């Protein structure tokens, strides 16, 4: 009845950031529930999982190693997880909302007939009283996420089924070392017991993996553009301002969908979550999906023609005006302050 986290292996043979973030969250949930935190690691020749994972407060690492288990394909990972969960009966199971986690978790939930909530922005422990039966449930996992185009925030629960499953995007939870000297145990899984030849129905013929170029997650300053930027060309002005301020350029989903910039720059519920010291929102109205990915920024500046844009209510400064007029003025002002100094 412990908390389980599926720990994803990246192309660089490291653990995915999101998995480490989820271990940190999982440890807090496990402490609250007074249970253990267990990590599931599936791959091929993984270097020092103990050293890498125990400091996050991991009590047990379930390790499945086989040359056929990396790169990831759905069915073998699915078979290992479902059988392991049937044996160990976790009460909570967390997955990164990555292209792997979002492929794997739903299939696992279907097999185990349990509930799964995608792209949670918060996870809490709480209780619930069924209004019809009066039955009281304690220590449930509250799976909290924006819904219906982000116009509402829904709290989802799974009163009856276990594990309670959720996926979470990278950057939503905060990665922190629990105890550098924390020690758990490693349980090596007999892979043959979990998988069969049928699990290798999908064959990988070739892969082309690009290096991660854009790093908005760790940027201290972000200049972000929304649909209000109007065009791909206007996005260049954001890059100019970013170059002058040591910033990285971010975008809303609407701007990405409109083809103004790359999807790697997308901030929000279905993109990355950022907490920079300064966030300059240009032509962004501030739908809740976007805000959920940036509202913890230390300082927020909004540039918008609409004085009633929702983003303004979380901004520290609001400039009422057209971004294409304001941005050049900002760039000029920065040049001037630099000359003064």
């Amino acid at each position, binding site marked *: 009845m412990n908390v389980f986290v599926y720990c994803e292996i990246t192309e660089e043979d490291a653990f995915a950031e999101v998995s480490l973030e989820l271990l940190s969250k999982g440890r807090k949930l496990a402490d609250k529930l007074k249970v253990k935190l267990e990590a599931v690691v599936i791959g091929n020749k993984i270097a020092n999982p103990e050293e890498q994972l125990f400091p996050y407060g991991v009590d047990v690492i379930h390790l499945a190693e086989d040359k056929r288990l990396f790169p990831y394909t*759905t*069915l073998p990972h*699915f078979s290992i997880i479902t059988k392991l969960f049937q044996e160990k009966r976790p009460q909570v199971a967390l997955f990164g909302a990555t292209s792997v986690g*979002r*492929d794997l978790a*739903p*299939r696992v*939930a*279907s*097999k185990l*007939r*349990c*509930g*799964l*909530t*995608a792209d949670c922005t918060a996870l809490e422990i709480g209780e*619930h009283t069924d209004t019809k039966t009066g039955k009281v449930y304690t220590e449930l996992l*509250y799976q909290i996420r924006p819904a*219906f*185009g982000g*116009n509402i*925030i*829904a*709290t*989802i*629960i*799974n009163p*009856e089924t276990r594990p309670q499953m959720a996926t979470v995007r990278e950057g939503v939870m905060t990665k922190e070392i629990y105890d550098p000297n924390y020690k758990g145990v490693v349980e090596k899984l007999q892979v043959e017991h979990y998988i069969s030849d049928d699990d290798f*129905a999908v*064959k990988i*013929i070739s*892969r*082309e*993996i*690009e*290096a*991660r170029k854009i790093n908005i997650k760790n940027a201290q*300053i972000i200049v972000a553009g929304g649909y209000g930027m109007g065009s791909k060309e206007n996005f260049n002005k954001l890059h100019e301002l970013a170059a002058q*301020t*040591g910033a990285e350029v971010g975008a809303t989903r609407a701007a990405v*969908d409109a083809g103004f910039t790359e999807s790697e720059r997308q901030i929000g*519920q*279905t993109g990355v979550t950022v907490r920079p010291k*300064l966030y300059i929102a240009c032509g962004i109205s501030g739908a809740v999906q976007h805000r959920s990915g940036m509202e913890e920024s230390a300082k927020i*500046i909004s540039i918008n023609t609409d004085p009633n844009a929702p983003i*303004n*209510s*979380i*901004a520290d*400064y*609001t*400039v*009422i*005006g057209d971004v294409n007029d*304001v941005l050049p*003025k900002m760039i*000029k*002002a*920065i040049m001037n*302050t630099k000359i003064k100094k």
Partner: protein
Amino acid sequence: MNFNIIVLIKQVPDTRNVGKDAMKSDGTVNRTALPAIFNPEDLNALEMALRIKEQIPNTVVTAITMGPVRAADILREALYRGADKAVLVTDKKFAGSDTLATSYILSLAIKKIGRVNLVIGGRQAIDGDTAQVGPQVAEKLNIPQITYAEEVVKVTNDNIQIKRRLERGVELVEVAYPCLITVHSSAPPCRFKNAKKVMKYKKYYTVSEQQNENMNCISILDRVIEEWNASDMNANMEMLGLSGSPTKVKKIDNIVLVQKDNKLLTASEYDIALLMEDLSNNHLLGK
């Protein structure tokens, strides 16, 4: 023998274009203000099916949607764009279904069709963005899944090669039939409606539509869009709707913004210069 492709489609509220009237004064969603549309990635899925049909002789493309009677609109649209058959899966008992119950219902509809080579759907629907129904239908059918498909690289009577779009690159995979594919928005867009097909299919209705419109049911049998309910598919009633859904909505919070101490500035050079100086003095600029 026919090569059978099922395309799973969904009618969704257009949450991408939420206007000012989309929220009621009490803060709840005004669903009627949002137009109902063909889920965008399901159109990419339909196009993928139609391209495979062009390469494999005797292919039958059947569009299936689960939803209320008005969802028949997107079935007709699928027929206009090139699908061969359409099935509406509808029942009041389906109301409140989460992804698990939905995938169970869709898997029953697919099983009722019989021998299927490919099931293709959009990666996710814009009203929920969960991307769960595809993999869950694959599990219910006990067939492999290929998610985030971007391009069919090669297709034969025995197997298919698909290029998948990953977070950081692409992957080429091969699988034998049957399998389920979910299609990414980066896949080719769907072809337009065909005028001849519009003429042919615009009078195709489901049984419920005919009853609702008080049409005298003179339609020739093959002019009917198939309509199946829970008992038509021998569904286990416990696995439908709310009772078949392990996820429950505990509460819904409307978005309430907390007003910060906000400094309002104009776009004048003076105001902006002050702002930038302020930021600079507060060590907010530079790495």
